[in-house]
């Protein structure tokens, strides 16, 4: 146990055992899958209607976003600041939830064979869920942002104030710690990933501040936040990967793909791999 905790020697053994045990999750998920397919047709029609409406409203938004993206790229070029890196998305379904109530994590139905890697950020349609901590051949385990051992670096969207968001072990709560009394934090503030860790891409919503309390005699504020993502409910998740900054820098130095000038918008050197269900898209 000490070896597993302190070193990474058992990593290979772990992922081998996980490859054996993951099918158990798939089998135990069968009742849910069965009810899904039984009532599927009724729900399918309703889903279809509402999804069509959503698609329409989102494509209208996308039209505007396209113009904004161009404008953003131009302004960034004017400022001479670095370009945003586009992310590649991979979709995965939750096949299991680990039973331990003190540290719940999700099992995804995709693994090493689908290009999932350790430390990969996981999102649902509303915000950040967590990160991949264990990869088997055809499955992977996701540590949720609410886990006791998880900390997410965030920004307050309103004023770019940086802070660390700690998991509490409770499903519905996160804590913003070490924030001094003078900081400008209000209930209702949206917290987004800051990207300073080099792991989570910047700008994704993580949580909404629910309460800010000042306790006399304590140096820091007591701030609680609710996760933005539907941690308990979401079944279809998105795995995000993007070329690390170092890769981008190296590519620029070696100069193999032409960088395309400052107005190339998003990272020009990086071409998403063709994948059956992977999509290219920005945050």
């Amino acid at each position, binding site marked *: 146990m000490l070896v597993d905790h302190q070193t990474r020697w058992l990593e290979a053994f772990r992922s081998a055992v996980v490859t054996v*045990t993951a099918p158990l999750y798939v089998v135990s998920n069968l009742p849910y899958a069965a009810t899904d397919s039984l009532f599927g047709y009724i729900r399918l029609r309703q889903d279809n209607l509402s999804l069509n409406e959503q698609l329409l409203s989102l494509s209208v938004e996308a039209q505007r976003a396209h113009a904004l993206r161009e404008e953003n790229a131009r302004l960034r070029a004017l400022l001479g600041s670095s370009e945003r890196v586009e992310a590649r998305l991979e979709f995965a379904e939750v096949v*299991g939830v680990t*039973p331990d109530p003190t540290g719940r994590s999700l099992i995804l139905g995709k693994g090493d064979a689908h290009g999932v890697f350790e430390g990969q950020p996981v999102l649902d349609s509303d915000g950040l869920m967590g990160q991949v901590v264990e990869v088997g051949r055809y499955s992977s385990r996701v540590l949720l942002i609410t886990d006791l051992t998880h900390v997410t670096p965030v920004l307050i969207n309103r004023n770019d104030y940086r802070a660390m968001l700690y998991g509490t072990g409770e499903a519905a709560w996160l804590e913003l710690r070490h924030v001094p009394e003078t900081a400008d934090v209000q209930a209702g503030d949206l917290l987004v990933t800051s990207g300073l860790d080099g792991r989570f891409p910047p700008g994704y919503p993580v949580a909404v501040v629910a309460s800010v309390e000042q306790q006399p005699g304590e140096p820091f504020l007591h701030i609680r936040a609710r996760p933005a993502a539907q941690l308990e409910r979401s079944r279809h998740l998105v795995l995000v990967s993007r070329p690390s900054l170092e890769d981008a820098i190296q590519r620029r130095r070696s100069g193999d793909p032409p960088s395309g000038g400052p107005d190339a918008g998003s990272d020009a050197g990086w071409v998403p791999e063709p994948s059956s269900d992977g999509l290219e898209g920005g945050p």
Partner: protein
Amino acid sequence: MKFPDTLVIWGTLVLALLLTAAHLPAAAPEVLAWIRPDWAAMVLLYWVMAVPQRVGMVTAWCLGVLVDSLTGSLLGQHALGFVIIAFVGLSMYERLRMYSLLQQALIVFFTIALARLLGFWIDVMVRGVSWTPQILLSAVTSAMLWPFVFTLLRALRRRFRIA
């Protein structure tokens, strides 16, 4: 046709693992997650008690590693607990067989509670989990379900004539 005994024993153990892996619907209240009985430990304890010459510490350890991998806990955390359960089972299986179901259930409670507390102690050191008495709830439900598990597995053992 007679199945190999090992197949039957591991079949029940895998079934217990499936019950461990099964997740509750999202709408279920949180207390249900706490009161889940420790299926794998119960099935293990039964086989250790019934056929100690076949199921012992090694089986317990292997099962524990599988549970560790299922729950994502530290490799060896459940394995240690299960080895202790198997040890208790091995050291008093002759007495356990003489006990009434109620007395057996009491022993089940104490051994699973012991294994749980040990696992919790490791969690405290590694992840900083804080104490709640709820971690013992699963030992309570395991003890309450023991008579059913015991009768079911005994019927199975007699049906397949495992000795």
